[in-house]
């Protein structure tokens, strides 16, 4: 008989809390790809995602004693990752463009690449729209679709009902639709 994911997670957590480094490594191996993917969907930059993923785990180790185990481990990790991302984008930076130096002429005539680029542009446009959502809706959408968290889990960490989460998702879709229908600036 195999252990349920929940009990397996509790076992892992118990081992980590007992100081088992191997268990911590196992946790990392199981979760880091998903954390990386979640952050990548938020920021769209692979190098930055790797850095923020690393930072997420650093924060996780520091906050381990405060994790009460009521939500799933990945839900907790996702919340840390999301906060890490928000902290990153809220840092002040001045990267407005200088006036235009000559740019390199890069072309690719193959249709497949064009199609890929169109999809990438659409994805980027969608990502920008999601980032413009109000904070509560943005977290709900990203946690559900990009973090892969079930509605029940999101409701648990947001301390609201699942119905409220579904309402948030509905409002988010309405806003996203209106934003996506606008011409990209």
């Amino acid at each position, binding site marked *: 008989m195999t252990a349920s994911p929940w009990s397996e997670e509790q076992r892992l957590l118990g081992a*980590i*809390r*007992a*100081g088992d*480094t191997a268990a*911590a*490594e196992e946790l*990392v*191996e199981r979760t*880091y*790809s998903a954390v*990386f993917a979640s952050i*990548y*969907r938020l920021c769209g930059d*692979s*190098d930055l*995602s*790797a850095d923020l*993923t*690393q*930072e997420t*785990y*650093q924060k996780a*180790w520091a906050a*381990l*004693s405060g994790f009460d185990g009521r939500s799933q481990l990945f839900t907790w990790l996702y919340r840390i990752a999301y906060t890490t991302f928000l902290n990153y984008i809220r840092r002040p930076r*001045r*990267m*407005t*463009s*200088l*006036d*235009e*130096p*000559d*740019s*390199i*002429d*890069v*072309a*690719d*005539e*193959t249709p497949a*690449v064009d199609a890929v*680029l169109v*999809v*990438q542009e*659409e*994805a980027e446009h*969608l*990502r920008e729209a*999601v980032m413009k959502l109000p904070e509560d809706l943005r977290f709900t*959408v990203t946690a559900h*679709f*990009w973090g892969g968290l079930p509605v029940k889990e999101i409701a648990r960490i947001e301390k609201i009902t699942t119905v409220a989460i579904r309402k948030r998702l509905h409002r988010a*879709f*309405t806003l*996203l*639709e209106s934003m*996506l229908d606008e011409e990209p600036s």
Partner: protein
Amino acid sequence: MNSKRKADIQRKLSLTAVPRPPDDLLDRIKSDIPNYLSVEAERARFSRSIGFNLRIAASIIVLISIAAALYVVTPTKSPNAVVAIQQRKPEPAPTASATDEVRLDIVQAAPAMQRQIADARIAPPAEVPRVESEPPARRADVRAEEGRRRNEIAAVEGGVEGFVSGGVAGGTVGGVIGGNESRDREEAAAPAPQQLAESTPAPVPTPYAYAPEVPPPPATAAAETRAMAKTAGVSLVPPVYADDLNLAPKSVFGISVDPSAFRKIRATIESGARPSPSSVDVEALVNYFAGAPARRVRGVRMEAEASPAPVGANGHRAILRLTIDTGVVDVPEGGSVPPIAKDALLEIDFNRDAVERIDPIGDSGTLVRENALLHNVSVTGLYALDLRTPLKAKQRVATIRLTYRSVEDGKKHTIVHEVRGSDFSKQWASASRRHRLASLGALWGESLRSSSGGSDVARRAEELASQAPNDERARELKEVAVASSGGGGTR
């Protein structure tokens, strides 16, 4: 909102393509796992530590109380007290016992002793032994006072050392987070800039004449290094990093990272002369301006970034930057910077179908193996490329490969970065600030060598500095570029 549209948005949200995590990410995260994960064990350790500290504190309080009691009760033989006793001898005191008299005299002698202690604070230590017989508490007081003085001196020196290590971290800017303490100390001992200003005539900015290198004004270098450290945005190595900073390498992978190169050139320019072309170490300038990473790095990290050239790109001239950063460690006093990797080899392979001409920026041109790659290192190399345009977005332009054997786990690691045509599609202004500073620093160095193109660089540097007013290095680059171009870029 109709259900079809909703489903479409849901599908797009769910189907965002995600690349694979970098190969070294797992190792990076694992290396961050702390040794003390056990919360209970940590708590117990913390409790033990608190208990121990409380016991020490209680012992100190008891000792101080005993010392204070001894000071009050014990008869003193200090000269002042003896004099006081002698002075009081003629006075009749039939009702008081001898012990009471001595107690009274000690109380009267106290102000004199306080003056003496105050004198001891000012007087050189050699005079302290003239007090022939001090009460134990008095000796303890003087010792405590000396200890305080030492602490004050140490605090001042700590400030200097803190600045030195700060200077080092920034001074390596691209070089090694470390530096040369002895040199910095010599600089700190040299006259202040105000003195220099008083003793030498004000420099005439133009016309330039080639001149031997002028050593940098020390206090300016100090402020500069401190500012660089601030700009670098890295946690500075604590003051204990100090005594072995001569170990900071001047080159890494054959790329010059000499942190003093910029200071020398700037000093020459500030003195009104123009550095001789042969004295301009462009690689070191690139590393100065590329600086340390914005965030603390763990392990070994490679960055590669491409952009059009900042000036004169003409649709095909481009810059490729590769940077290696190694993890920052604190080095104990007298210790040396430990290696993070052995047998580190950095290779770059250009696709000749995409690149027409390759110009390594700087003198070495050849990357060499590092037998021992140290911690606290940031090294940046730049290549100026003439691309065969139009490039295809997915066309490989270059492959950069870093292989090394980790000191920590003994395993061989490889980091590979493939640079493609799409990497060159962005504008120079969209590149990272580190990339822009490094490439402008390179162009500035080249302009000093060739005596041309300085005004374009100055204009770009002014723009960059105005975009990032808090970036000390951008400001420095603007200042030197404007000064060396003969007064100003185009505003």
